[in-house]
Every structure is written in C-alpha cells, then in structure tokens.
C-alpha cells in the first residue's frame, strides 16, 4: 500500500543572489509505514537534488536528522509519516530546527551547540592513582548514567528550548545533560567544581522548567530532570547565592506560604525589588502573559487546606 503525501518544506539557499527563505511543496508517493525521512530522501534522490538535509543512520542513533515538523522538533527518521500528516489533508510542514541558525534548507549551524558542549568540560576527571583494573562502580549508578549517556546530541531539545529563544547565553538542555553525566559519575572527582561552574550565569539556574526538552527528546534523556538533580546537588553543596538558587528558595517559600506559585512575587523575591534591570527583562514575558490571559492575581489568597501543604513541607524537610 502506498500513500500520497505533500510536504511543505521551508527552504533557504545562501548561494542565491538574494538569499531569503521560502516554502516549497513536494508531492510524493510513499510506502505506508514510511518515515518522514524516507519521504525527504525520496525527494532529494529522485526529484530535487538541491534539497539539503543531514541524515545517516535512519534508526535514531546518529543524531543527524533533528528538524521541526508541524512546529515541533523531531527526528525525521523515527517519525512515521502517517503520524504527522494533518487530518484535513493539508501538507506536512517541515522546517529546520530552531535556535541554531540555518545554513541551508534543513541544515542548521551546530557550531554554538558544540561550543556549549565543550564548555562543560565533558570528559571524566578522576583523581588519585589509576587502578590496575577497572574503577569499581555500582551497576545502578552506571545504569542511571546510561540514561543520560543515551543522548545522541541531536539538538531537538535545543531547538525547542524556550529560554534559548530569548537568551542565547544559556548553556541549554543538551550541554547541561552532558554535564550531569559527569556530575553523577562516581568516578569523577570534580563534582563540586563542576556544580560551582554551572551555577554561573547561563548555567543550570537559567532553566525555567518549561518541559519542552523533556517532551521533544527522542531518547528519553530528560534534560530538565537532570538539571533539577544538579540544582539539588548545588544547593546541598552550598551554591545558592545566585538568582536561580534564590528563585528556587523563593519558590519554595511562596508555595509553603500560599499553597500555590505567586508569579508576581517570585521575581521580586528572586531579584530583589530594587533590581530594576533584571525586573525590566521580565517585562516582555509579563506582557505576553497578559495577552494570553495568564496574568496572576495581584493579591493571591492561600489555597484552602494550606495547612496540609505546610505539613508536606515539614515532612520533606525532616527527611533531608
């Protein structure tokens, strides 16, 4: 069985006299179970050789083929065409991955991506005498790390990270997940230095926990979860003198107090009411929230049953 698919591909040719992006439609016939990548390969091998994209393994392991489909980052090779064809028969919208800058068609610039990976000193730094045989380590610790190590550096998370959209300085989910791979490694002797480094501007505290990276990651790496784990470790190690750490503490404080997140007070507590510069940076977010009707109430009341919330806090804190 075959199916009739129309792809609407966002293209960009830097060699054109006046480079500008444009959309191009391709109509193709595909086997039923085909992937999005099968479709794109068919286009470039048989119809239009000028279409540029990266791909290699066709089995979600090489990390080459991240791109946006219908507005969301995916790996083209493990995305079934059927699953992304709109019900109304309109074309499948294919765009380059976001936040990285387009080089040509679906090929984006990975220079900054690799630069950020390098910035977290992504290599094991053991100390002391090297053993004759292997370092001993519990299997559970290794299996836990294998979950992060499964990252294939595809950049899907970076493409859709909401912070990177506004702040290019942010290390981003992939680099932070890579950092966690060493922070969490029992053989690495520099956990503290690493955490301290990652506490700087652009590091772990700049994540807003929007969950995008978790949702788009094709390998279940859970970058946000790893970032949160590092925050716990950083706080435990005493690295809390930052906006981000104060944000977390303020967050906890507010929830304990009112049972929900008071989004107006949070930045004030984090930055301090007189830190006009930082507060102004938030103005656009505030305005956008207003436009979609998501402005928090000015004087929130504690939720009913706030005592129970506070009791949960006491329990958790007693456990720590």
């Amino acid at each position, binding site marked *: 069985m075959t199916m009739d698919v129309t792809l609407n591909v966002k293209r960009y040719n*830097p060699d054109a006299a006046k480079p500008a992006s444009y959309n191009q439609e391709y109509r193709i016939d595909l086997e039923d179970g085909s992937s999005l990548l099968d479709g794109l390969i068919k286009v470039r091998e048989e119809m239009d050789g000028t279409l540029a994209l990266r791909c290699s393994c066709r*089995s979600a392991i090489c990390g080459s083929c991240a791109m946006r489909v219908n507005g969301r980052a995916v790996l083209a090779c493990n995305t079934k065409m059927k699953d992304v064809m709109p019900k109304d028969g309109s074309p499948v919208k294919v765009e380059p991955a976001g936040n990285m800058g387009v080089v040509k068609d679906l090929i984006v610039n990975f220079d900054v991506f690799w630069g950020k990976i390098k910035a977290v000193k992504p290599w*094991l730094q053991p100390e002391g005498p090297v053993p004759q*045989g292997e370092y001993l380590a519990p299997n559970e610790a290794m*299996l836990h790390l294998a979950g992060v190590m499964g990252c294939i550096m595809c950049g899907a998370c970076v493409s859709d990270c909401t912070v990177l959209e506004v702040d290019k300085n942010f290390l981003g989910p992939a680099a932070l997940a890579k950092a966690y791979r060493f922070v969490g490694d029992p053989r690495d002797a520099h956990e503290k230095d690493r955490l301290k480094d990652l506490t700087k501007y652009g590091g772990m505290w700049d994540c807003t926990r929007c969950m995008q990276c978790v949702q788009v990651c094709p390998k279940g790496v859970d970058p946000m979860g790893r970032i949160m784990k590092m925050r716990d470790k950083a706080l435990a190690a005493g690295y809390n003198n930052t906006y981000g750490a104060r944000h977390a503490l303020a967050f906890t404080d507010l929830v304990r107090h009112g049972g929900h997140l008071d989004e107006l007070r949070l930045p004030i507590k984090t930055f301090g009411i007189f830190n006009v510069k930082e507060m102004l940076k938030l103005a656009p977010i505030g305005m956008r929230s207003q436009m979609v009707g998501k402005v928090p109430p000015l004087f929130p009341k504690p939720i009913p049953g706030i005592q129970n919330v506070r009791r949960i806090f006491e329990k958790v804190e007693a456990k720590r």
Partner: protein
Amino acid sequence: MFDHDVLVIGAGLAGMRAALAASQAGVNVAVVTKVFPVRSHSNAAQGGINAALTDRGDKWEDHAYDTVKGSDYLGDQDAIEIMCKEAGSEIINMEHMGTIFNRDAEGKLGVRAFGGQRQARTFFVADFTGQALLYVLHEQVMKSGVRVYEEWFVLSLIVEGGECCGAVVMEMKTGEVHTIRAKAVIMATGGIGRVFEPSTNALICTGDGMALAYRAGAPLMDMEMIQYHPTTLKSNGALMSEAARGEGAYLINKDGDRFMKRYAPNMMELASRDVVSRSEQTEINEGRGVNGCVLLDCRHLGEKLIKEKLGQIRQLGIDFANADMIKEPVPVRPGMHYVMGGIRTNYDGLTSIPGLYAAGETACVSVHGGNRLGANSLLDTLVFGKRSGQHAAAGVKSKQHAAGVTDAYSEAEKKKIQAILDRPADGGELFGKVRQELGETMNKYLAVFRDQQGMETAQRKVKELRMRYEKVIVHDKGRTFNTNLIFTLELGFMFDCAETVIVGALERKESRGAHTRTDMPKRDDANWLKHVVQFRTPEGPRIEDQPVKITQWQPQVRSY
C-alpha cells in the same frame, strides 16, 4: 594549504583512537571527517566488544582460537594474536577514560555471551556500546586539542614519489577545496554497507576510504568476504543486535521450531554469523519462513531484562517492524552488515604505500578472514587504530613534508568537480535510482548464497549502471552544503567497491566463511587457503594472492 604531521581521515572509533595515540606520541595531528565525529557509524554498534580478561579466568589464546575458527581459517594468526593480547588493556583504558559499562554485583565490568565463542567475554553498555565508546573517544579528542575538520569531505589522496603525503578535501559548509599536506595519512573511513541495499549500515557508509586508497595505488584484499547478519529487519534493514541471542533469544521458523538444532547442535543460535545466516536462508528457501523471514523470539527473557539490556532494539522493532519483542517474536532475516575485506595492511596498519595507514572496517589486517565474530570489530578498531597512530607518529618524527605538494592538487580536483556540475542536463538522471539499482543488484547476487552465473550477471549489470553513472547530473550548482554533489561523488566510490567485491567473489573458487557458492560448496584448503589481493589498473583489477599466516592453529573441519 594546511600542514599536519599525521592526518587521520575518519572520526569513528578507529580514527579517533588513532588520533589520540598519535597525539600522545607528541606529533601534530588533525582529523578530517565528513560528519560530526559522534555521527560516525561506530555509534550504531549495539552488542559489545570482546576481550579475554585474565582476572576473569579467560585466556587470550582462547579468544584467538575462536576468532581463527570464526574466520574459517582465513584470518592471519599473527595479527589475531596481537589483537586478542591487547584487547584487555584497551577495554580497561576505555573504562579509565570514562566509558560506562554494565557492571557485575561486585562493581566490575560485566560480560554477555556472543556468537561463535565458547566463553562469555563481550563487554557492553546495554545495547549501545558503540555510542558509549565513541562518545568517550570524542570527549578525549576534545580534551586533547587535536584539530578536527568537521564536515570536510576527502576527495583524493596525494601520492608523491611513491609516498602518501596528504589529501585534497572539500569543506562542505563553504564548498571550498583545500590541500592538506601531511607526513603520514591514516585511513579510518569505515565500511561499504550502502553498496548493498538494504544494509544495516548508515547512509554515510559508502566505502570512500577503500576507493580512495585503491585509486592511489594501494591494493584491496578479500573484498568478496561480505558478512550478512542473521537478524535484520525486513523493512529497512535495521539491525537487531546479536546481544538478543547473547541474552538467550531463540530463532524459530514458521512451525515454532528452533531450527538451529539441525545446523549447529552445540552452539545453536550462537554459532558463527555465516553459519546462522545460511541456516536461516535455507529455512526461508525451503518454505519454512514467514514472509521471507524467520522469527527472533525474546518473550521468555522477560520484560525487565529486555528493558534494561535491549531497550534500543526493542524500540527499533516497534518502530520499524511493528513488533514489541516483549509480547511477540520479531521477524528477521539475514542482511548485509559488514565487510571483512578492505585496504591491505600489516599489523601496524601500514599499507603497501609508505606513509599511508588504514585501520578499522576500511582496513583488512586481516583479523576477520572469511567471517567476523560479533563484537570483534569494535576491538579491531581500537587495537589497530592505536597501533596505526603510534606507528605513524614514530615514522614522522624525523621526516620533512614533501616539497612537491602544492595547491595544484586541489586545483585539479576543482576542475573535475566543475566538469560534473557542467554535465548537460538532457538525458541525465539524479544519482538516486542508480544507487538503488546498484544496491539491489549486489544484494541479489552477492548475498548469503552465490553462484557463477549470478555473479557474472551482477558484473554485467554493474558495468551498465556505471555507464549510467557517468552521465548522472547534479541539480545543485551551489557551493554551500552541496550534498547532491557529495552523494554523486560517493556513488563513484561505491562503484569501485562493488566491482572489487564481484571480482574477488568470482576469483575465489570455493566456499569459505561468508563466501558460500552453491556451485562450489566445499572449502578447498589445498588451493584457496590464501588471500585475494586486487590492484587497480586502467583495465580493471589485477589479482595477486597472498598466503595466510598460520602460527599455531592448523585448519580443521569447522562445526558449531
């Protein structure tokens, strides 16, 4: 023009291991790779890497014997001994650099069983061992400061006065063509999978390095030895790792019968790959298959083990075969997977051309002979990558750059490229269909079973396809990421590989290892215990043979 002491071509396991070894020896090293290092095909290796660790009660001699037997006695035993002796220290070295390996209850490295071996000696990380190793080498290369030319595509090698002294390379992002001068060049460009369609290999596995070395005058050896892996998916050729069988999975036919008992009663599913693939193909040919496949049954392994150790291939089964191995058997069939042959080297990686080395899948040392054991390839890349790096570094220390290497080399390549871009559009086609037909032809006539007539048909067809290839047009005339041009050039490399595979297969008049001829079904040690070596000439390959090195294991009847 750029200058380096040692230029490594390829950033897979072999290339990065070579680069590290050379850089540790204190010379100036650079790596060129057509994809970002971690995109190299080594990342796809699933099952594991072999080593006999003495403190586990294993012996390198046993590993070596299993390898010799697996090779159907075509492997060179001096090289095999080196590989198996050095295996342990390579694994430990990789662990020290940071590789996450599965552990046993004491926190030491754990092992799993793999095919063709009497002892479990395969070290692994779930089912993405290649990725785990590749990323660690990448980390170390980043740390070392070795320069990596990422997404640069090698167009040709430079040979002056009989010595290799550099390469001409295209920077893909700008389309610029550069000359890189080097005192030694190490080829680590991986396999030729895409010459066959389908294949377990990635789209970048187009045999560039073999063709480049062959064109530069280095001979290729044992090209007829193509491994078909017993468990690949029908839809897209994706691999279901041997780890599944290593963990205890069964192969059954349409009657639910574990048919391997009739072909390899002792080792069953874990016999050598050539043996299992032939058995499966026989089942299928004799009508006991299921839609051209047999079934890989993992159900009895249980959900926990599957999720923990085979999670990635379970997902591949779900994605590409609509079968969840926890609940149902997965249809699989033999599929093209690996090339045992390649650029002929000695056990220091040196080819017949001074200054030119090769390591990894692109090289033929030869440690795999007629059939590679599962999990011996990763080992091969590390051991011989390291040795090539060390040897090349030692050789360049007192050497000067060849004076004759100038930008004239890159100018010549630019002209060739321009000629391709300028081909008249009328009557020409894109490369895609030609590539597809080439792959299908190879897969039809040079598969698990071969015969004279089929191979001759293949030879004729490939010749015709090559004529079509000479007229293929390139739509893209731009400079930036002209992937259309790159694929077209790769297809040219693939033709060189295809041709030598066929010539080698026609030459070898016996059945040995992966080369099984239905018209000559017996192994013939009296006449064919030797390597088939091919040199390029304008009239086609010139063939020489070379004796197999035997140290301690005389050929015997091979049964599992």
